């Protein structure tokens, strides 16, 4: 969903300034600064418990940081609720898939499209006029842009709960894309996938980021270093609430502190492949 103040590639889309978040005495984020520029794939890595998911939850509004500002397109969004942020063009997937298992693939994706419906209750209750027209337009969008992209034609009418985990993740990505986001937060999109599914998912992320049709900025939380280093323009390393470095994949791989934080993982470029 393109906002009124369209940005150019390279402009700062999302900015976190000195964000603090703690749960009781547990400090999850201790003054995080992050700038995400339009058009890039920005990855966040760090050991388990580093605060990556907390950071994502702060960005999309599930958590509200105690200190610091989060601004989107130059506008402070700290006070906004998740659905209000979604309206601004912020969309996400979850580490453990959060889909509606009893609903079909199509219905799950349609749900992500809900935000774009403009017709009112009156025409909606009789499914006539504006609603019918709108729904057909949205269905066309879902078919042409999402189902085709994610290659899920053969399962569109299947209940999501019946599908293997890898496909559920794909459906969740589809739902996030239905929103036509400008910034897509992907929280461990590759976790629990087999090799083939990892390759497919990595390709989808690249497609969404690079295809003229989409050009979505991606914020990626991921453990698969091979994929992170291959895909990302920028890598942000978080270590128990503190930032270690925010740089290009090469800079990150050569940073001694990063290597220390990942002690035991001698080769940062190690991957399942």
């Amino acid at each position, binding site marked *: 969903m393109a906002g009124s103040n369209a940005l150019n590639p390279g402009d700062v889309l999302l900015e976190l300034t000195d964000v603090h978040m703690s749960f009781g005495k547990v400090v999850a984020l201790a003054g995080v600064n992050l700038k995400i520029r339009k058009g890039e794939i920005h990855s966040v890595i760090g050991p388990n418990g580093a605060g990556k998911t907390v950071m994502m939850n702060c960005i999309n509004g599930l958590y509200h940081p105690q200190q610091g500002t989060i601004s989107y397109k130059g506008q402070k969004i700290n006070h906004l609720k998740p659905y209000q942020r979604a309206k601004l063009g912020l969309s996400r997937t979850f580490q453990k898939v959060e889909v509606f298992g009893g609903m079909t693939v199509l219905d799950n994706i349609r749900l992500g499209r809900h935000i774009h419906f403009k017709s009112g209750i009156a025409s909606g209750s009789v499914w006539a006029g504006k609603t019918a027209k709108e729904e057909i337009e949205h269905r066309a969008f879902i*078919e042409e842009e999402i189902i*085709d992209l994610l290659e899920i034609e*053969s399962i569109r009418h299947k209940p999501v709960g019946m599908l293997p985990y890898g496909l559920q993740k794909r459906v969740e990505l589809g739902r996030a894309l239905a929103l036509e986001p400008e910034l897509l937060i992907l929280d461990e999109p590759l976790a629990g996938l087999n090799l083939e599914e990892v390759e497919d998912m990595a390709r989808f992320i690249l*497609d969404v980021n690079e295809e*003229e049709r989409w050009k979505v900025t991606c914020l990626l939380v991921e453990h698969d270093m091979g994929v992170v280093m291959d895909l990302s323009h920028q890598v942000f390393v978080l270590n128990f609430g503190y930032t270690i470095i925010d740089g290009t994949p090469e800079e990150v791989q050569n940073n001694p502190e990063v290597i220390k934080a990942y002690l035991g993982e001698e080769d940062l470029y190690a991957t399942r492949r």
Partner: protein
Amino acid sequence: MQHEGNMHQTGVEITADLTIPKLFYQKATKYGNDRVAMREKEFGIWRPITWQDYLENVKYLALGLISLGLVEGDKVSMIGDNRPEGLWAEMATLCARGIGVWLFRDCLIDEVKYIIDHSDTKFLFGEGQEEVDKAISIINECPKLEKIIWDDPKGMRNYEEDYLISLKELQQLGRELDEEKPELFEEMVNKGSGEEVALLFYTSGTTALPKGALLSHHNMLTMGQHLMAVDPCKASDDYVSYLPFAWIGEQMMSISCGLQIGYTINFPEEPETAQENIREIGPHVMFAPPRMYEQMTRTVQVKYLDSTWIKRKLYEFSTYVGYKVANLKFDKKPVTWYWRALEWLASITIQKKLKDHLGLSRVRNAYTGGAAMGPDHFRFFHALGVNLKQIYGQTEVAGISVVHRSGDIKFDTVGHPIPGTEVKIGEGGEILTRSPSVFLGYYKNPEATEKTLIDGWLYSGDKGFIDDDGHLVVFDRTKDVFTLKDGKPFAPQYLETRLKFSPYIRDSWVIGDNKDYISAVLCIDYAVVGKWADEKKLNYTSYQELSQMPEIYDLVEKQIRQANKDLPDLAKVVKFTNLYKELDADDDELTRTRKLRRAFVEKRYDDIVNALYSDNDSVHIDTTIKYEDGREAHIKTDLQIRKVAD
């Protein structure tokens, strides 16, 4: 034996001058926008393509090829899924007076390289990124290959090689040429005669490298006409094209028959949705290799096991009646009113629904060919009320030469020759065919041509005989026929197809030529056996592990005992093992049409063969398998060997 039939059922007179492009142009200008030539499901909707659209697309592609420098007799290859663009590319090649070559979509890089190089391909139509990648990796080794044309833009944004061109750009070139020379297309189409080469078709070959069979326009057109003289098709019929175009059977239906009668060719959305799309269309005519029917049978068998008691009972009733009536018909005995009434009941309760689910509700004629089909599968479909017919044919005869006639079906034969076709049995029981559809020879392989084509007769290499009713019986490939211990010949594929009737067994390989007894190597069906294991609360993590569980061996043994029933003792499977992987065309174990490459597997698995004829109860495997993208995996396992209890 020879049969004459009505040669003009299609309303097309095949003269010596008639070529596929001429016929295409006639039909397309006649039907124009009034009739739908093809349909493709895209973005969830069936989209029609009229004959006018078909013509325009082909026209600009053909002219585009000319502006790229195609000259008469140049080879143009095609690789990709079944889709309108594939057929347009083929038709455009023929219209531009080139020769069409089709490759199987799942061909490995080496196979692609061999065919592109051997055929002297100048232009290659690839569907999308995957095909383009394959082509790019071989282009340096195939100096004659000049341009690669793609039509699916997905993933193609970063490709900038000069030799790549999109289908749309090619058509644009064609449009420009058309403005310059508006008469050119028609002139090209009207040139040529039926004797010229239309297609160069590579046979799958169970033994050696693929051979390129040269097929003329006349071969292709007479094939369609003769088949439809036996089983007329209607212009209003629907046909679903989902099997590879690189298989001659698909060419026969889409080009040879489709063009003459003008029925609508439907393309599924994705290969994975084919079964669902077939159901939506409900085709009137269907031609598929046995594996498709085997898959359908398996689906029904598994669903039956899964369903409720009342449904199971109803199904049992309907199959009982179905088999009974089918057997009466096979025996050409009258079906009494009593059985007729029961048949009607079975039809409205179960059969109709089942046929609808399988997409067979409107099928007038369903054909199976390309490999042997077991009698059990065959009877299964007749018991459902599907008019399934065996055909016999090969690439070298542009499709088929022998087919069952309605009402005269025997499940162990392939029927009578189609009109214009003579079939006789030569020395050593070899099946020989002579007809206007017999091919011109192998490309760049005169020795093979000399061996196969003698005085107009096609030497098939298949062993068979003609039975008392004049039906042709195909025994097996001559070189595959076993000699049993008592000296009698035995066709291994007969036993293999019997074994495959079990839903749990996906592939089977029977060994026993000049041995003391027969043994089998089996591949379980991962999905079906896996489900069975889930229900029995057995834990497994891989195909390999599942295949070696003792419970699975028990299950498979039960299936073998079923297949052994009624067989003479020497023809029974005595020992078997479950293979640790499925047989795969990528490993050269099967041909692209899924026929077993016996000589190859015997060599590859000689440890297993030896163990089956020793006293060992297991065999150690230490091997490396290669994935399509070049990665390798190491496999170390022990395969159990089990003796089938009496």
